């Protein structure tokens, strides 16, 4: 069993319009010192998954089932109070928008001090020293002075660094970064990603990076999980998923990877159509309304949900096409087009 082991996780929300199946049978694992990248379009259930791991759906209307094992302990069945005591200490999270994710009325220092003192019985002075220390470690200049600044007095990149400092303040063993760079501009994005990689090595924690940009995770991750409509459609080592992808949706993600030198409309293999409804999930393969190869799998595409099956060496793909067919398409049609980019 991995350090974090998620088995058949389902997170459904009953709403007036019907049952929203935001996460529908997701399984994955991450080891200490390893990085998992979770990729998918907006609305594919990435954030709902990470909040589920931290137990932050409790008290809401979400219905959770499946198993979440963290360091040999199951969390879905655990008491709210116990999961709370693990939050921030054993598992921590970095959010997408550092401005709205930090309290506007408290200084950055106060917020880090608070995070530290929840789990460490130390005086304010000690916690403050620790906060200054952490700010320095995430690369904030003059940390002893900046510790008393408010979040709105920081630049976007500095704020995200502060957020990282806060998340790392109790030395968590599992760190989930939910689109940590989406709100930042490109040069800052790269710096933050570098920082995360360095810190992960230093802290030897299990890291989950969530993004809708395959390029971001390709470099950083050991494994990549591609999500579509609440389900995993492709899962494997970063090598496999990035260099030998077999699912048409992953090809679409690769083809629509943001590039500095190209307008979004000029991307070579854009995914047509819009993400699926999570209430009335398309029957059969959820991706079929948008899949250019749907006819190849005939009726099955619309009637039968494809299984997440192993293609080779732990590389899982959810598609009715045969392995040879998918490989052939990738080698002969997709890869050559992408290489012209």
């Amino acid at each position, binding site marked *: 069993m991995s350090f974090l082991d998620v088995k058949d996780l389902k997170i459904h929300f009953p709403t007036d319009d019907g049952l929203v199946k935001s996460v529908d049978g997701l399984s994955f694992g991450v080891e200490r010192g390893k990085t998992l990248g979770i990729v998918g379009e907006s609305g594919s259930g990435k954030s709902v998954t990470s*909040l589920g791991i*931290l137990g*932050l759906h409790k*008290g809401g209307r979400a219905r959770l089932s499946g198993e979440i094992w963290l360091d040999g302990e199951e969390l879905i069945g655990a008491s709210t109070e116990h999961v*709370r*005591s*693990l*939050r*921030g*200490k054993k598992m*921590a*999270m970095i*959010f997408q*928008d550092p401005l*709205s*994710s*930090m*309290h*506007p*009325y408290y*200084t950055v220092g106060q917020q880090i001090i*608070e*995070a530290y003192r*929840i*789990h460490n019985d130390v005086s304010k002075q000690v916690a403050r020293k620790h906060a200054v220390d952490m700010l320095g470690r995430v690369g904030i200049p003059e940390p002893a002075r900046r510790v008393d600044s*408010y979040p*709105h*007095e920081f630049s976007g990149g500095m704020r995200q660094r502060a957020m990282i400092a*806060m998340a790392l303040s109790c030395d968590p063993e599992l760190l989930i970064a939910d689109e940590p760079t989406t709100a930042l501009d490109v040069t800052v994005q790269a710096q933050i990603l570098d920082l995360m990689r360095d810190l992960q090595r230093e802290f030897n924690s299990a890291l989950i990076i969530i993004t809708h940009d395959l390029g971001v995770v390709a470099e950083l991750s050991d494994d990549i999980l591609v999500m579509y409509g609440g389900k995993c459609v492709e899962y494997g080592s970063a090598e496999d998923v990035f260099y030998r992808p077999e699912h048409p949706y992953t090809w679409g993600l690769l083809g629509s990877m943001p590039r500095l030198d190209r307008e979004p409309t000029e991307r070579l293999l854009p995914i047509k159509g819009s993400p699926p409804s999570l209430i009335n999930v398309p029957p059969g393969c959820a991706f079929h309304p948008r899949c250019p190869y749907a006819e190849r799998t005939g009726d099955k595409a619309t009637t039968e949900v494809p299984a997440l099956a192993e293609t080779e060496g732990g590389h899982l793909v959810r598609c009715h096409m045969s392995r040879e067919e998918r490989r052939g398409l990738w080698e002969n049609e997709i890869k050559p087009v992408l290489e012209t980019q």
Partner: protein
Amino acid sequence: MLTYIIRRLIGAFAMLVVISMVTFGIFYVVPQWAGATPEAMASRYVGRAATPETVHLVAERLGFYDPVVVQYGNFVKGLFAGAQYDYGAGVEHCPAPCFGYSFITGQPVWPDLLDRLPVTFSLAIGAALIWVVAGVAVGVLSALRRGSFFDRLTMGTALAGVSLPIFFTGMISLVVFSYGLGWTPPGGAWTDFSENPAEWAYNLLLPWITLAFLFAATYARLTRAGMLETMGEDYIRTARAKGLRERQVVVKHGLRATLTPILTLFGIDFGLLIGGAILTETTYTLPGLGQYAILAIRTQDMPQVMGVVLVAAMFVVIASLVVDLLYAVVDPRVRLS
């Protein structure tokens, strides 16, 4: 921060100057424009039996023939340095701050106001405390238990509270609690705080609650709406992700952010409270500024009315100044701008 304070102080001072002009205008200038002769103005000070010559003389001595600017100047001078009122029959000295001289009671207005201020202050401060604490507490609880019986009950009551006038709730509670159950003293009971604090509070309990009820209703609704919004914010999720206990998430993070707009409203309401106090004082026959104002209006005692208006206006300006300063303490983003 310092420039902010200085700017607000200057603003408050300018506000007071404008208010004094407007008040002076309403009570002295507008009547003259509307056709009241200086003699008509002066006749109020000398009684109906006076001869035209006396009236003319008094009008002259009181300065009603002077240009408006000079009259205003004298009025302001009176506020700071005191004034002499010369009726011809004798000279009355009105020490600073001279808010004028009642022509009904023959007394300077300021000591009267001073006498009555403690009553109104007691009423206002006590009611304000009750309404803020009760309103915010109820608002937070109903936000956290949205849709529950408690939520529906309190919000229903709050709706009634906002729409029921004070003299109605005041009368009803007097009838029920004083005359019916005998729990609280009937109207008109007043004991000075310095004499007997317990009795002071006991006498004021019903007026406090009546007055607080009206405002508490608004605060409960506002707090509830604010909390519902705040608790959905990203930083609340962050606070939970840190492993903070839910109670602290609610109080330290949720309520903290919700309180800021409530504080603003409080500043305005506390200033305006004098309006509510007038009704409450009348209903419970408390010897405060409100009751004084009602009497003054009935007897058309202009200097008295004007005195109350000026004091009430000062109340509003000072309250909003205090709140602005508090606001800067509470919301760090204000300090920069």
